């Protein structure tokens, strides 16, 4: 099995966002449940939190050897250093920005713990042989920390694991420009079919604390996290999901603490109208459903969005009232 080092806490800008120690400690408690085997923290984060929550395993990111001596109780440290040095509990972080630099890493082959950070453009190259070369360069498993300026970090991290890599670094929501922890864990679970000891149903809680810390709202359609990712409007999708959710959902929304939601609008079909009516405890003849659908589509185009439940109910009431008037007039 592989190990995940989480870099969320070192990527948070303490001087800009002013998170409290309690918030950071809360995140420390959640990250292992999301799949992080080690939580990387920095000295400022350590000082902000004070006493670290006991359960997670921590790695301290330091700027020099003196810091290691000062904070000597950690099992592992991360240091940007290519010198072997005297301390064997150091992960040597080496920045590699260009794939063509990989052969030159043989200079550091004697290092025992290495993290390679960067390689953003790996997906634009023959990444398979590059990854193989990287693994063969060092005697011990390499931790890969792909960066995301080419929007491929999660894919690179996953390909690293699929090709036998033993360790990757990632961060919650990809903060800091790294592979995205929750995307990676869901891909491992759903695509690699690995049984992993994670509880991703706490993602809404983690998202809330992340948004509080960073003062940034997670995008409505962000993979795995977005609040809208299980909202369905399109006719064929609503119909398919009603028959079997697997038709248009890659995994059960509950896995990530969410629920599916049918909304009605321009792209709805009669199935979505029937499902929505059923949700509200109503059943109407097909002739009325067609009229409701027409009205829903028209109003959605005028409003340039899906309709709210209140707007939908109003349309239904209007259509039913008009129909009654026709019958009794």
């Amino acid at each position, binding site marked *: 099995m592989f190990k995940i080092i989480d870099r969320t806490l070192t990527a948070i800008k303490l001087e800009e966002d002013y998170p409290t120690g309690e918030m950071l400690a809360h995140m420390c408690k959640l990250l292992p449940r999301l799949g992080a085997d080690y939580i990387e923290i920095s000295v400022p984060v350590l000082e902000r939190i004070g006493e670290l929550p006991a359960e997670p395993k921590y790695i301290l990111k330091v700027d020099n050897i003196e810091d290691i001596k000062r904070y000597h109780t950690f099992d592992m440290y991360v240091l940007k250093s290519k010198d072997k040095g005297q301390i064997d509990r150091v992960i040597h972080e080496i920045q590699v920005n260009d794939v063509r630099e990989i052969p030159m890493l043989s200079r550091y082959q004697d290092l025992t713990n290495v993290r390679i950070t960067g390689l953003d453009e790996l*997906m634009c190259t023959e990444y398979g042989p590059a990854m193989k070369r990287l693994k063969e360069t060092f005697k011990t498993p390499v931790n890969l920390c792909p960066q995301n300026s080419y929007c491929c970090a999660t894919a690179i991290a996953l390909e690293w694991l699929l090709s036998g890599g033993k360790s990757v670094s990632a961060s919650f929501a990809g903060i800091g420009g790294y592979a995205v922890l929750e995307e990676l864990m869901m891909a491992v679970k759903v695509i690699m079919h690995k049984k992993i000891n994670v509880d991703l149903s706490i993602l809404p809680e983690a998202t809330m604390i992340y948004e509080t810390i960073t003062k940034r709202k997670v995008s409505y359609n962000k*993979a795995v996290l977005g609040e809208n990712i299980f909202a369905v409007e399109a006719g064929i999708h609503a119909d398919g999901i009603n028959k079997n959710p697997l038709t248009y959902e890659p995994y059960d929304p509950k896995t990530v603490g969410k629920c599916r939601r049918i909304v009605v609008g321009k792209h709805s079909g009669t199935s979505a109208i029937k499902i929505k009516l059923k949700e509200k405890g109503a059943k109407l003849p097909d002739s009325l459903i067609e009229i409701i659908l027409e009205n829903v589509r028209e109003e959605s185009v005028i409003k340039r969005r899906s309709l709210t439940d209140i707007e939908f109910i109003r349309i239904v009431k209007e259509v039913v009232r008009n129909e009654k008037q026709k019958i009794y007039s």
Partner: protein
Amino acid sequence: MKNKKYIVDTTLRDGEQSAGIAFDEKDKVKLAKLMDEIGIYQIEAGIPAIGNVEKRALLKIMENRKNALISAWNRMNVEDIKHSIECSPDIIHISAPVSYVQIYSKLRKNKQWLRNSLMECVYYALDKGYKVTVGFEDASRADISFIVSLGVMLKEMGVSHIRYADTVGVLTPHNIADVTRTIIRLTEMDVEIHGHNDFGMAVANSLEAAKNGAKYIDCTFLGIGERAGNCDFIKFIKSSDSILDCGISKKEALEVQKEVYSLLKS
């Protein structure tokens, strides 16, 4: 020399299809014009079967069009295609669900029924003189031999190219590389890749498909689309710039993105 690739923009179809978004006729016409101006190869402009608002938009888009090819999206039924024909698009795109879960759970039919219905629809559109492309919906969860057999049949019928849709975003780069090469080799058809971002890999998957022979890449501005969206146009252009020639200026594409953003926010 960079490989030449062609962007198929589906902001006005799959992008708009995501819950919460609805463009009106004016929005669609405006965005299609901007997309045409920056050199996008093909604009998937909408679904005429939705109704008159959509048909009017497509007709106006066709009237304004200078260079881009305009396509209309259709479910696999002749009635949908008749609606599209009213708009006289350049391309009739027919979507065929090909995975078992789609065929047996959603359509409640079988593979033979699917093959026959697809043939009927393709024949109908070709017979009316249209260029036809076929999208294999949920192809990433389908049997590759079924896809190849349909591809061979479609090539014989005269279909222009086939779209491989990773409808629920479950592909990885190495998978998509394999399937792209396999389909091209066994069908001798051009392939269009349609990625979704459920695991945050739509850009990487599209890039890998393009590297392995896919000629057409589907994108949406701001990555809008069902669930976690589609392959983000700007991100794809930026990430592929060193190896692919999509014939689009990033600066101009960013201006279109700003317009899409402003319409979505208004």
